[in-house]
């Protein structure tokens, strides 16, 4: 019974939304890249770089929002590297993506060591504070979860709607979807496939980095090694889970976060009987199961991972 009571506690729902926020940013970023036909496995490294860049900006005396902007720029830079190698040069997106992750992660750790050589425990910053919305935050059970979070969480939710709007309602979104499906059709309409894909990868990577920055600037207040801890890979799965649709991907992120928040709480209930590793494993096992069920009829972009080189026969 105690196991079910967890679901009725406000703290569970607050944690769920908090855990989901960075995933939402990064998933939207990956979704944007993939809708344009570019798989971005640089996500894990880009999130690491974003987490550090945002946090260090604030630690060095910058404003919190400046930190977010610097994180986004850092992500964009790595996105441009990944984009340049995979779009105009048409290299393997898998290999390049993993390379980008290794590069971004290692450079981040290196710079951390160079900038803070003497620190044994990482310094702390003042992170984003929760910004409760009057009245709405007082709704029982979900009020605190949805309307008493930090501004970055609100931004994450607004982002989902924005991405959906861009993809479905704007000329740029039509072009992005089209290059992900049939780049030749886009070129024959006079739009540069390279330009559209590069832009999507750059912007998508910026969002991934903001997702990383959420961890150091909103969820926690400090930067640790290994703090991204596979969240980037989870986001890749969430994009598939969401069938490349922003709304469904959002649901996936919340579902995954709920499993995660639930397992932590379940540990304190039945932790003396079951080893804790089983709980840690739970969200991943459940996401694999959900993935199997959901991705059966996933409508993946037809030109995903297929380089488009102009003038080739």
């Amino acid at each position: 019974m105690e196991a079910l009571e967890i679901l009725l506690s406000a703290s569970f729902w607050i944690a769920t939304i908090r855990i989901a926020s960075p995933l939402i940013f990064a998933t939207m970023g990956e979704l944007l890249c993939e809708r344009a036909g570019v798989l971005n496995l640089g996500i894990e490294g880009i999130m690491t770089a974003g987490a550090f860049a945002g946090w260090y900006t604030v630690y060095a005396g910058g404003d919190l929002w400046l930190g977010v902007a610097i994180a986004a720029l850092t992500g964009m830079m790595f996105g441009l590297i990944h984009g340049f190698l995979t779009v105009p040069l048409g290299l393997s997106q898998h290999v390049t993506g993993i390379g980008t992750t290794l590069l971004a992660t290692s450079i981040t750790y290196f710079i951390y060591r160079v900038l803070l050589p003497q620190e044994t425990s990482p310094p702390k910053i003042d992170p984003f504070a929760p910004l409760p919305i009057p009245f709405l935050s007082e709704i029982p059970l979900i009020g605190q979860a949805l309307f008493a979070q930090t501004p970055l969480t609100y931004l994450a939710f607004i982002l989902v709607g924005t991405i959906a709007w861009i993809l479905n309602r704007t000329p740029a979104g039509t072009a992005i979807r089209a290059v992900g499906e049939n780049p030749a059709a886009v070129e024959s309409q006079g739009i540069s496939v390279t330009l559209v894909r590069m832009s999507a990868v750059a912007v998508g990577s910026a969002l991934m980095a903001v997702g990383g920055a959420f961890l150091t600037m909103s969820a926690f207040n400090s930067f640790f090694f290994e703090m991204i801890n596979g969240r980037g890979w989870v986001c890749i799965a969430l994009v598939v889970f969401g069938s490349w649709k922003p709304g469904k991907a959002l649901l996936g992120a919340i579902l995954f976060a709920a499993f995660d928040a639930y397992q932590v709480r379940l540990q304190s209930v039945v932790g003396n009987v079951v080893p804790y590793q089983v709980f840690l494993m739970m969200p991943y096992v459940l996401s694999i199961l959900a993935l199997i069920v959901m991705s059966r009829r996933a409508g993946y972009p037809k030109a995903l991972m297929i380089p488009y080189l102009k003038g080739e026969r």
Partner: protein
Amino acid sequence: MISNKIEERRDLALRLTRITKRFGTLTANDNVDLSLHEGEVVALLGENGAGKTTLMNILFGHYLADQGEIEVFGKSIPKGDPRAALDSGIGMVHQHFALVEEMNVLENIVLGTENLLAIKSQKNTAREKIRDLSSSVGLDVNPDAIVGSLSVGEKQRVEILKALYRGARILILDEPTAVLTPFEAEKLFATLKVLVSDGLSAIFISHKLNEAMEISDRVVVLRKGRVVGEKITRDSNPEELSSLMVGAEIEAPDISDPVLGEVALELENISTSIPEMRINLRKVSLRLNCGKITGLAGVSGNGQAALASLISGTTQVKEGTMRIFGEIPERWSPKVAISKSIARIPEDRLHTGMIGDMSVVENIISEKYWTDRFSRFGFLTRQASEDFSREVIKNYDVKCPSIETPVRLLSGGNIQKLILGRVLDESPLIILANQPTRGLDVGAVAYVHSQLLKARDRGAAILLISDDLEEILQLSDRISVISNGRLSKITRRGELGVKELGALMTRHVPSSERLNDAA
């Protein structure tokens, strides 16, 4: 019809000067000059691989020419830039439609016409414009339909609308009728005539003579990348154009009387059950004799695929017996079929016949690389495969830059010659020729026919499956009709004409596919 005098007074819409394009060592276009006047239709005629599509892709900016000038309405346009081509008034209807199947008609048409930084797509305005446009030129398409759900003819209409929506004044149509039914093709011609009478100019790419004769004012013939002739259509005739296209007169094959040989392959009351096929074989009995071509006519999708799959070794017999030279094979697989001297010329030459990204030499040995001839102790013997490849290329007149060239870079005709060479050079006893000339040009068709007849005279038993009745009637010593998975009685050469065969073909067709009741 336009008199010469009027034509001279008309303004030039387009002029291509000395266009040259090379792909590696292959020269696809060699100093090509082409002009087009306002309100004129020029047919660009040539065999497959003559360089027609390459030329148009250069004009449209998909390819960058190595040399040459493009002038549209008197202004030179930058090369290799589709945007510049579109802005100058050129619209292209691609042979393989440049459409996004997952999006709707409206989105496909509007793509690239709006500012990419706009906050909202003006779909309602665009929808009105498309409706007006389509009703004024008689191209009826629902703007909100998903392109993937449209028929081929409708997709082509979307391609044309796309060009017109952007205000194209020059329309390039790349083999527009290749994918259309005769009825749809007629509709297309009618539309084109309306558009041209409104002042549009068009380049009509084709390898079909009668189409070029019907639609064009002028014909430009390309052969091997060069312009070999330019004729005012009404002063020319199909024979003249044909010889220009091919470079030599084509003679009808001389067919000798068949020599009745032993039974090579015998099917007795065979049924199949292949789940992915709509029509399976039902109690089919058939004998293939050495030295004879047995033609199998039929509306496509009536069990031809199941029969071909069975003989190729990719399908097992469910009921009945199959004998090869009197023996019932113990196991049945493609490898066994090859070892029983069955040569397979598959229907889809690029997807089941060849591996496009692999080289000519790898493809040539792909059916037999494991034999002692091409490998020793599990290692390929390079020399043997190269020798064999050179022999095939020479004997079967395959045009390819080198034996290391990926097969996908060759033209359809050359790929088919490669397949023929691969299997026929081994002097097989049984030949399954499934749609052996589909999509090939006149010269290549004649070549394939002559090779099949040669194999027959050598004593091979040949099963010819074809949608082309003329081909069946011309080559076959005996003809059977397949319909709904069953075979008709075998008839001998000359017993039945096109009409009678047509009637047999449509007799048992499922009602959904019946075109006209031939009873």
